[in-house]
């Protein structure tokens, strides 16, 4: 069941930052469109403008030119209809796990306190953390924190979820389990998702569509449709179709010469 809402249109968006001695162009006439209820994955070299794009869509920053429309309405600032799950978790360390999840609905005054807490509890169970409601975030492992973060976003029923390398820094095995949790939540109730990662395998495994981005200034280099069936299962990682798509993406991403490490300062 695809939702009716959640169509995101980014059209010809540019973003420049003032730099020492001039302006650095991070995004250059970048356009992309997300269909309601689909999961789009963005991959590209680190330090390219992926996070900037997420910040623009979330409304934390304004584009230098171009416009961003969600369901036809321009984006003018942060809002609970577009939620970001950050690279490092942004759980409030001073609130219990349950208070963190309930924060959004309570801050906006949607629903009575007891009802919100009840929903938060249910969601906590869904991400496999029943019994951790009264812990503080720092008392949880990295993987558990990411799951709380997911729950804190989903309880607000956002039309668009922005995932900014949400599993980065987790070890490969915890990461796989996080992917499972994330896929289950998405497939149970599809909503528009934009997922940024630098891990190609993860990208192909999760997404309906893959956007390969260029170096700065960032544009979409290639869009690849991923026609693997849903629900996704881990055995698909070794299927022939997965391999084909993966190889296509690998070549698109690395180009002919392969990537190079540049000195950053």
């Amino acid at each position, binding site marked *: 069941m695809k939702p009716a809402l959640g169509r995101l249109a980014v059209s010809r968006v540019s973003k420049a930052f003032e730099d020492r001695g001039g302006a650095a162009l991070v995004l250059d006439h970048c356009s992309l469109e997300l269909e309601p209820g689909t999961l789009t994955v963005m991959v590209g*070299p*680190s330090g390219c403008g992926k996070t900037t794009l997420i910040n623009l869509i979330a409304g934390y920053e304004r584009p230098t030119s171009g416009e961003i429309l969600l369901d036809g309405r321009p984006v003018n600032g942060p809002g609970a209809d577009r939620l970001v799950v950050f690279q490092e978790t942004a759980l409030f360390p001073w609130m219990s796990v349950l208070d963190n999840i309930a924060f959004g609905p309570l801050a906006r005054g949607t629903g009575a306190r007891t009802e919100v807490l009840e929903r938060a509890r249910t969601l906590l169970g869904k991400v496999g953390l029943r019994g951790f409601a009264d812990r503080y975030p*720092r*008392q*949880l*492992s*990295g*993987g*558990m*924190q990411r799951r709380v973060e997911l729950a804190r976003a989903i309880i607000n029923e956002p039309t668009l979820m922005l995932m900014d390398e949400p599993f*980065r*820094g987790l*070890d*490969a*095995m*915890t990461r*796989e*389990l996080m992917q499972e949790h994330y896929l289950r939540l998405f497939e149970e109730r599809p909503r528009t998702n934009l997922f940024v*990662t*630098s*891990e*190609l*395998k993860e990208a192909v495994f999760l997404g309906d569509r893959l956007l390969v981005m260029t170096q700065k200034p960032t544009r979409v280099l290639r869009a690849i449709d991923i026609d693997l069936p849903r629900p996704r299962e*881990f055995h698909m*990682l*070794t299927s022939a179709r997965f*391999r084909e798509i*993966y*190889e296509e993406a*690998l070549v698109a*991403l*690395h180009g002919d010469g*392969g*990537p*190079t*490490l*540049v*000195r*950053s*300062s």
Partner: protein
Amino acid sequence: MASALIPPPGATAAGAISLRGVRKVYDSHGPAIVAVDDWTLEIASGEFVVVVGPSGCGKTTLLNGIAGFDPITGGEIVLDGKTIASASRSARPGADRIVVFQNGSLFPWKTVVDNVAYGPIVQRRMSRGQALREARSALARVGLGDVAEAYPRTLSSGVQRRVEMVRALINDPKVLLLDEPFRALDAIARSVMHEELLRLYDATRKTVFFITHDLDEAIFLADRVVVSTSRPARVKHVLRVDLPRPRTYLMMASREFLALKREVADAVHEEAENAFRLGEPELA
């Protein structure tokens, strides 16, 4: 490039490690925890061995045992026929077994060239001036000549790891011990580092003991992949990887690669889930 790094392949036919029934118990706080139990493996001279297992499963304990950072509780570790660690004697760290660490350990207060020259200088193997010259030329040979005077913190993590490998190799160690050295890098930088590491390996043929929890990384690099169980760590499965060398990143999408992966994927996934359950009540 790297081929000129001291010494030529096979110059020192050394670096064979035997791990015989290695055991490690922690018992200071509360009940004893068996971190490693009866861990046995023969590593040939010049072999590239990768140990895969969930994090916190005792892989690092094992590596610390070989490096001499941490004594072992039982069994023995033998290097080139000499017992370097057992229950009764703990190994000393030394320049024959150099570690490259997870988060990097370049001294931030020394420039790149001073870092690389550090080993030869403190071992009194050469004069300061000579060590610096050697360091400079070693850096130049792997394409890092123009960062020689930079401080590590001004460099990307990928470049830092490359410098750290040069710092290790210039001492002509028998064994390289790598403890998830690329964990902090993003996937793309990591794939570059894999190729760089393999170039250095092909040129020097040191024994490499590499720890990771990333199966793709393991298969791509290794001659043998050893799957270690979660607490206590034991050898669960050994996979021989016969992909030809030199290897290229496109091999990761090859049929052979995926076949190898399928062979151990279940074993690894099973251990991941074990560790996940074990790890649940534990702290971050």
